[in-house]
């Protein structure tokens, strides 16, 4: 482990200024991902700026409806928050489907969004990875890629974003409040993460030094009927091999509004706009949900070991939406 300095900033502006001035500094929040990566030599910051004592740990109901979630609110606390449980069940379920109780007690809202891919090649400094070391190649592209992307990957990177929370937030049209060296800014969740393209080492659209300070959920009454469905290889403590976050608003049988996002398929949480388009304005049926998933996945390019993600994602789309339509989302 590389020796590093530790700094506890007095405020957000100071934290951002320090990060902007120190090219090898990193923010430390829950540390559930960063500390592992430091031990593995994958991330080697020389300065940790600990943001956990900043006053960013509140969950506030907004005047016009909606919720502001402080960046350092712990995953466990957020999942248990009564307003989240009542108004945004998709969010509570996504949080509780993630990691383990111990990890959720530490992991923060902001940190969760910025966690790194769990691609095994990224996490092993003995193997080629463009994300870890630009120009070194992508060992996963023709290697063991069962868990990796089927959508929007590039020849330089086939990693997936591992977060469950981010998938739920993508479906909810959440807005990320960030503080950058130039000042505060709002970033729609859907615009926070990048496609891998030519620069898989650049994972977000944030400026160097940017600090996520909060995540804002819009007023969305339809989200009371929402669900998160996660499929994984064992019953707990595993990353998704497929997941879907869904909000369904029906007018009688007709889909008045729908929000759909996928996890475990791409380099970013995947908002399924095409599927939503197929669904909106039509009478709901499981067949329609299947057609919508197919439309979304039409441009998927499975890798050698992950073709199963297409029928899997289709199946969980149908199930999540059908259960919401029937008013019986499975716990």
């Amino acid at each position: 482990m590389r020796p590093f300095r530790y700094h506890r900033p007095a405020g957000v502006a100071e934290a951002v200024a320090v990060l902007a001035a120190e090219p090898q500094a990193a923010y430390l929040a829950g540390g559930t991902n960063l500390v592992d990566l430091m031990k593995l030599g994958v991330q080697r910051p020389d300065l940790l700026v600990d943001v956990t004592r900043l006053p960013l740990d509140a969950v506030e109901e907004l005047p016009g409806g909606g919720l502001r979630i402080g960046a350092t609110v712990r995953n466990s606390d957020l999942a248990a928050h009564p307003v989240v449980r009542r108004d945004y069940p998709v969010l509570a379920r996504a949080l509780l489907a993630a990691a383990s109780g111990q990890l959720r007690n530490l992991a923060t809202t902001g940190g969760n969004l910025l966690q790194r891919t769990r691609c095994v090649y990224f996490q092993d400094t003995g193997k080629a990875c463009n994300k870890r070391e630009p120009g070194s190649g992508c060992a996963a592209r023709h290697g063991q890629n069962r868990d990796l992307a089927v959508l929007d990957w590039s020849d330089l990177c086939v990693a997936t974003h591992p977060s469950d929370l981010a998938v739920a937030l993508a479906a909810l049209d959440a807005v990320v409040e960030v503080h950058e060296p130039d000042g505060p800014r709002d970033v729609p969740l859907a615009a926070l993460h990048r496609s891998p393209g030519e620069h898989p080492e650049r994972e977000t659209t944030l400026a160097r030094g940017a600090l996520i300070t909060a995540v804002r959920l819009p007023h969305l009454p339809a989200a009371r009927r929402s669900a998160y469905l996660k499929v994984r290889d064992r019953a707990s403590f595993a990353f998704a091999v497929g997941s879907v976050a869904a909000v369904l608003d029906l007018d009688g049988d007709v889909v008045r509004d729908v929000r759909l996002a996928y996890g475990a398929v791409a380099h970013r949480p995947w908002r399924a706009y095409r599927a939503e388009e197929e669904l909106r304005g039509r009478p709901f049926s499981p067949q329609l949900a299947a057609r919508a998933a197919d439309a979304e996945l039409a441009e998927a390019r499975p890798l050698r070991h992950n073709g199963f993600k297409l029928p899997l994602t289709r199946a969980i789309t149908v199930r999540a939406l059908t259960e919401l339509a029937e008013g019986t989302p499975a716990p």
Partner: protein
Amino acid sequence: MTTGAVGQAYPRLEGREKVTGAARYAVEYPVDGVTYGWAVPAAVVRGRITRVDAAPALALPGVLSVVHHGNAPRLAPGPEPDLWLLQEPAVHYRGQLIAVVVATSLEAAREGARLVRIDYDAGPHSTVLTADHPGLYRPDQVNPSYPTDTAEGDFDAGYAAAPVRMDATYRTPAYHNNPMEPHATTAQWRDGRLLVHDSNQGAAPVQATLAELFELPRESVRVITKHVGGGFGGKGYAKAAVVLAALAARQVDRPVRLALTRQQVFGPVGYRTPTIQRVRLAADTDGRLTAICHDAISQTSTLREFAEQTAVYTRSMYAAPHRRTTHRLVRLDVPTPFWMRAPGECPGAYALESAMDELATVVGIDPVELRIRNDPAVDPELGRPFTSRNLVACLRDGARRFGWAERDPTPRARRDGRWLVGTGVAGASYPARSRAAAATATARRDGGFLVRIDATDIGTGARTALWQVAADALGVPPERVEVQIGDSDLPPAGVAGGSMGTASWSWAVIRACEALRAKLRDTPGGGPSDGEVTAEVSTADEVRDQPALPRYAYGAHFAEVRVDADTGEVRVNRLLGVFAAGRVVNPTTARSQLIGGMTMGLSMALHEEGVLDERYGDWVNHDLATYHITGCADVERIEAHWLDERDGELNPAGVKGIGEIGIVGTAAAITNAVHHATGVRIRDLPVRLDKLIGLSGLA
């Protein structure tokens, strides 16, 4: 056996120490001036180290030394090439531990290990086991000393003539023993003597190996192994950590603590070999087996031959007039495989018990009944009656408890909402062996007793079991007995392995206690008046003279699974095992062993898989986040029961050992249940949703 401590459900003697954190493990002993070692893995698969540049590491504050083949203390070349570490520039597999960085802090050692620059000349490699590998060969014997191939009757003719046949090939991947505590050692040299606190399954064999490697008299090496955070076979003998720690400590002339990283546990200390197993069964129309053939392929390394006895299980499990078993090996550029819970029996039973299920389907006979019909009266190998064989009783009792009678044999006939539900059964057996051991029993002046034996408690409850056995053998309440184990200074005993621990150690303990009682009877006043009285025994002669009889524990495994019709997710509703394993010394620790084995079998069936990337010659999922081991949420209902079995041909305590029998049939019971649920037979483990979703069009 007057006081009756044996059979009582005592909690583990050291339980409180463990759960409060007071129990010390190998790298937790306070040692003055201790330093820290960090092992460096090879970055190529096969080749030679051409240069080691230690300068960048040595420049780091706190780094004391970089120990490698160019400067390491010399070891005697021994029979264990895997342990001839830091002696030569050759690299035999990726991840081979080729240097140790020693520093005054763990962090500096770790960073130093990253900074060491090593250059290699690398050659081509072969790391993937295939059924047609050009390097396949026939080993002279398989572990530990079984014949490689056996044949009786004429399998080919018998098979060809039979009215009912099945022929299938089963594959199991590499499995990695992952005890909570990795291989870990604190090593100290004092006046030419070596003291190690080490995590292993037997202090005496580690002592012997270290003495041999460092060319010391055995009494100059002491190995202390008081608590061990699991082993599952992988710590059965001395492994890399203890040798590297001892080398490093000698090099820096200071005590060294060295624990392997989780990643380093995946390979350099062994793993269960992948297997490819073809099983052919033939039967008459009543399901009576007429021909059995089990051909097993597994891998070993270029360093040493390790021949997993995969098909040996088949030799005594079911009888038929025409029988054949074979083993073939390939030497690959991989680390040497090693023991993992029920080596041989575990993968072998998966194949045979799956094949029996397939045969049951072909012949249209209930799989419990099929096994009962084929239960041999005498051991098919030795031609002699089993000392006890209660497979049928286990099957019947299990079937009753499980509610098997109500089962509709039709595959894919049961549905619970989106879940397809099915049930499966498998048999299991594991040899009941004993090894020689020595022990002492001492009567103390205060009326207490001390029993000393170099047994090892790797978390099983062995310490507690021996304490109960000793109390009964002495005829005193257990509170008056103290048991000391886990130290090579104690009377020597074999490893905690092969389900032989309690059988072997209790034998010596009972004999020592008997000898002490005899001695006390001859002592005026019947007790120590002015000193302690000690009796020392060895069971070497008794164990050696034991007649060669077929001695086995048996079990019947039942599983109910559900498979998600849309996603292919598999979950286990219920696991039930019934075992016939001789006398059970402690129901609490026995149950823990049995359900632990069953859970590990569940893990094998559904979750565990070492995923190899041939280009790197290495497993890519080498941590507990990516190498999935069954979690608590996967174990929904699990029951272990046992029959009251008395077998006078075993050992004085009448125990068969229970460390391994729990895993043996579990995977087959689960995969048989998956077939019953879905109609799809997956023959390569683990059974995962991607295999089912693609094959069955389940929905």
